């Protein structure tokens, strides 16, 4: 599904965000990506989406060499991924429902299907009552849930969630992670970066820990902290 092969990413500023990352994530896996601030988690997820290209090594997603993907093929790649961005990236001048519907319209979904599926996604994250509000009128946690709705509405084969619970209270965070786990049960590959030890420790799924751009730990049923 996702295969990093000796991947390095050095930003033009000279920062080496990732070095010699080799890892394989199989279809249907649920993976927590942990590590301190600036360790390269977001960069890892951006490489999968071809937002950034690796400076060395190969990133293969679903058989495509993402690093060498022609610009014209990038949209097709991104449509197969459902992404929760760390900075939300909601369109400020469209309603919650429009923001979620947007991901469907982009993929050319049959218009009659869009309404029900948006409704389903918003109900899943508990934001259906706010469908007609603008993002600026939502609290931080509410915006984060709208992002998640947008990520799952296309029923993608892979969900990438960058810090999807950063603005949520423990209870809401727990609900979101359970939701991701349910989606994973349906066969969707889920990759979640997080700083929340509780969630990781309760769920006990595969944990990949980054530190200064290198994989320092990769455990099948890991905890947030390495067990010494």
């Amino acid at each position, binding site marked *: 599904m996702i295969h990093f092969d000796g991947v390095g990413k050095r930003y033009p500023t000279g920062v080496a965000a990732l070095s010699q990352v080799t890892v394989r994530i199989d279809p249907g896996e649920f993976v927590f990506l942990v590590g301190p601030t600036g360790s390269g988690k977001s960069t890892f997820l951006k490489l999968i989406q071809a937002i950034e290209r690796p400076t060395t090594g190969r990133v293969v997603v679903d058989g495509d060499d993402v690093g060498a993907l022609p610009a014209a093929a990038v949209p097709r790649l991104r449509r197969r*991924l459902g992404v929760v961005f760390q900075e939300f990236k909601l369109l400020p*001048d469209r309603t919650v429902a429009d923001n979620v519907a947007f*991901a469907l319209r982009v993929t050319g979904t049959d218009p009659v299907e869009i309404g029900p599926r948006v409704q389903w996604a918003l109900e899943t994250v508990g934001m259906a009552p706010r469908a007609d509000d603008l993002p600026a009128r939502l609290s931080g946690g509410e915006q984060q849930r709208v992002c998640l709705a947008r990520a799952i509405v296309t029923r993608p084969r892979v969900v990438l969630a960058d810090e999807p619970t950063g603005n949520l209270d423990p209870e809401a965070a727990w609900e979101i992670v359970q939701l991701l786990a349910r989606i994973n049960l349906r066969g969707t590959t889920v990759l979640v970066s997080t700083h929340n030890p509780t969630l990781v420790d309760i769920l006990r799924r595969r944990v990949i820990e980054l530190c200064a751009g290198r994989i320092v730990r990769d455990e099948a049923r890991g905890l947030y902290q390495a067990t010494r």
Partner: protein
Amino acid sequence: MLADAAAGLRRNGLMAAAATTTMALALLVAGGGFVVSANLAHLAGTLEAQVEVVGFFRRDVPPAAQERVLAQTVALGGTSAATLVTRAEALRRLQQTYRSMASVPAVLPGNPLPDSIEVRVADPRRIREVAEALRAMEGVEDVVYGAAVVDRVIALTRAVRVAGLVATALLVGCALVIIVNTIRLAVAARRQEIEIMALVGASPGFVRGPFLVEGLLQGAAAALAATVALTAAYLVLAARAAASLPFLPVLAPGAVLPAALAVLWSLGLVVGLGGSEIGLRRYLTA
């Protein structure tokens, strides 16, 4: 996609209004320049058409011979009109111009003026040629064509045409740059939207589509506004000019507006579309 574009315009109301007004004004200026320049060219043409060559006959040339000269002149080609003027007619005209000469026939033993032939030349640059040919004809004593006046008219009409073309080209060029800049600014103000579209997997075409249609709609709206303004202004001004300046040759609205509006609409549509395209290119490289 049309619905998307309309929604986009509604959401960005102020920006769309600003861009469209700017485009409309720029188009109006360009269209106005075109109309004015067409009228100047027409004026120049009218002046040129008034340039004439006069050939004076010897006093003994009979009307039949004069008719032959007339036929030969017409056969020359390059003339737009040629008429014979009798000495009687010439005197009448002179008396009309100089009223104090009304008494001349009473004073004089006879009419001192010669018969003549008046020739209008289609292209004033061929006037010398026509004059020489006329001078060589049988019975023609002298040929007058006001070389200085002809030179002036040729110079003036050329200047007017060049000035009109240059002004129109400049105004159209200005309108173009202004419109492209306006759309580019409007797109820059929405770069966030463009970025997010790309991130959720919209193909470049899908991102571009609504913007291009929006640009096209704006171009059309601007062209429509400019059309209304230009047509109304020209109808009023042309009517006014015809009433108070009957001697000034103003083009009929039907003769100049279609071309001006064609320029204006093509400019509006092409630039609306092209401007959006250019404005977008910057944000679609990633």
